[in-house]
C-alpha cells in the first residue's frame, strides 16, 4: 500500500492505495471522477486519456504511484466560454463528434492536448494526433471536424 497524492483538476487528493493501482482506477474509484473510461487492456483505445502535467497519457497504463505529487486534468476539469464548455467540448457538440459518448472524454482530452501544442492543425495532424483513440460510433470525420471547429474558436489558447 502507498499513500498517493495527486492533484486532480486543481484539487489535491490523497488516497491509500495498493502499489498496483492504475491511475484510471485511482481517478474513477478513489477520486470518484467517472468521466474517463476504460475500453481496453492494452493501451489501444484511449478512452482513459487524461492530461498528466499537461500531456495526454493513457491512465490505464500508468500506475498511480508513478505520478506521486503530479497534476492530472480529467474531462471534468475542463471549462470555457461556451456555457461552461471548453472550445473542444463545444466543438464536439457543434459538429456531432460523439454518439454513445463513451470514448468521448478520451477524445476530448487528446484533442485538447493537440491544440495546446499545435493550435492550427491540418486534417492530417488531427487524425494522427487521435490515432491512439478508438471510436466505434462516428467513423471519425465528425471528430476531425469537431477539433477543427475548436481550433477556429480558441481551442489552442
Amino acid at each position, binding site marked *: 500500500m502507498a499513500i498517493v497524492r495527486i492533484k486532480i483538476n486543481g484539487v489535491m487528493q490523497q488516497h491509500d492505495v495498493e502499489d498496483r493501482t492504475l491511475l484510471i482506477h485511482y481517478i474513477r474509484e478513489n477520486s470518484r471522477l467517472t468521466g474517463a473510461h476504460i475500453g481496453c487492456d492494452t493501451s489501444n483505445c484511449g478512452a482513459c486519456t487524461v492530461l498528466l502535467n499537461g*500531456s495526454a497519457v493513457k491512465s490505464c497504463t500508468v500506475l498511480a504511484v508513478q505520478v506521486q505529487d503530479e497534476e492530472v486534468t480529467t474531462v471534468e476539469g475542463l471549462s470555457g466560454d461556451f456555457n461552461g464548455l471548453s472550445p473542444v467540448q463545444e466543438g464536439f457538440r457543434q459538429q456531432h463528434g460523439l454518439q454513445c459518448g463513451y470514448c468521448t472524454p478520451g477524445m476530448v482530452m487528446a484533442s485538447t492536448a493537440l491544440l495546446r501544442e499545435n493550435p492550427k492543425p491540418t486534417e492530417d495532424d488531427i487524425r494522427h494526433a487521435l490515432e491512439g483513440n478508438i471510436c466505434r460510433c462516428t467513423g471519425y470525420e465528425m471528430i476531425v471536424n469537431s477539433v477543427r471547429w475548436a481550433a477556429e474558436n480558441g481551442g489552442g489558447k
Partner: protein
Amino acid sequence: MIPALFTHVPVTTIKEASDALNHYGDDAKLLAGGHSLIPLMKLRLATPGYLIDIARINDLRGIREDKDKLVVGALTTHEQIENSPLIRKYAPIIGAAAKLVGDPQVRNRGTIGGSVAHGDAASDLSVALFGANASFVATGPNGKRVISAVDFFLGFWTTALNQDDVLTEIHIPYAPSTNWSYQKFTIRSQDWAVVSVAVSGSNIILGAMGEIPLRAEKCEQAIASGADFEQAASFADEGTSPSSDIRASADYRRHLAKVLVFDALTEAKKRS
C-alpha cells in the same frame, strides 16, 4: 485488467536501482515509463513481484552533445526525442523513428530505454538505433559497460542486459543529416511494424524479420560492390527468419523487407 500484486520500489540513484535488482533477483523488473511492461502485467503475462521505479533518477534524463556523439538518457521519452533539436541535427533517423512509436499518449510516457531494453525486434527505436550505430550503456554492480547494438540484441525479447544492469544511456554517434531513411510497414496507422527498415549511411537494418533487429548484410555488401538498389534489395530477406502471425506470413514479410529496403535506399539517396 489488473496487474498481479507487486511492491513498488522507488529509487533515486542508479546504484540503488542496481542494488535493488540484485537483491530481488529474477522477481524484479525495472519500471521506467512502463509502456512495454504494464500492458503485459495487466494481461498477467508478466508478474514481477518488485518494480524498481527508476523514473525519478534525474541522471537518466535528457539529451546532450558529447564530442562526436549524442548521449541520450534512458528515461528520455519518445516525445522528447521526436521534438529534440539535437536529435534533429545529429540523428534525424532517431527522431523519425520515435515519431512512429505507438501513438501520442504512448510517446508522452514511453521511454527510449524502456523500449530498447524490452528487446523487441519490431521496436522502431531499436531498429533505428542499430542503424545509427548506437551503443548502449549498461550500469551494473561492477560499473559501466558500453554494448554495441550488434552485441546488445540477443534473442526474442532478450538483450545483453544482466538481471542487475540498468540501461542508463544510449550513445548515438553523430550521423550525417543526409543518407538515412526509416521505413515502417503497418496494416493500420497505430501499430507495431510488420516489417521495418533503417538505412543510415552504409547500414541497412531490418525490424521484425527475426527475433532481433537484423543487419541486412547481403544488401549492404551488394551496395558496397556497386549493385543498384533493386538488385541490392532483392537480398533483403537472406539470413532472416521472420515469423508468421495474424498480421503477415513469413513469406509476405520477406517480400516486404525487399520493398522497404528499396524504398529506404531510394529515400536515403534523395536526402543525400
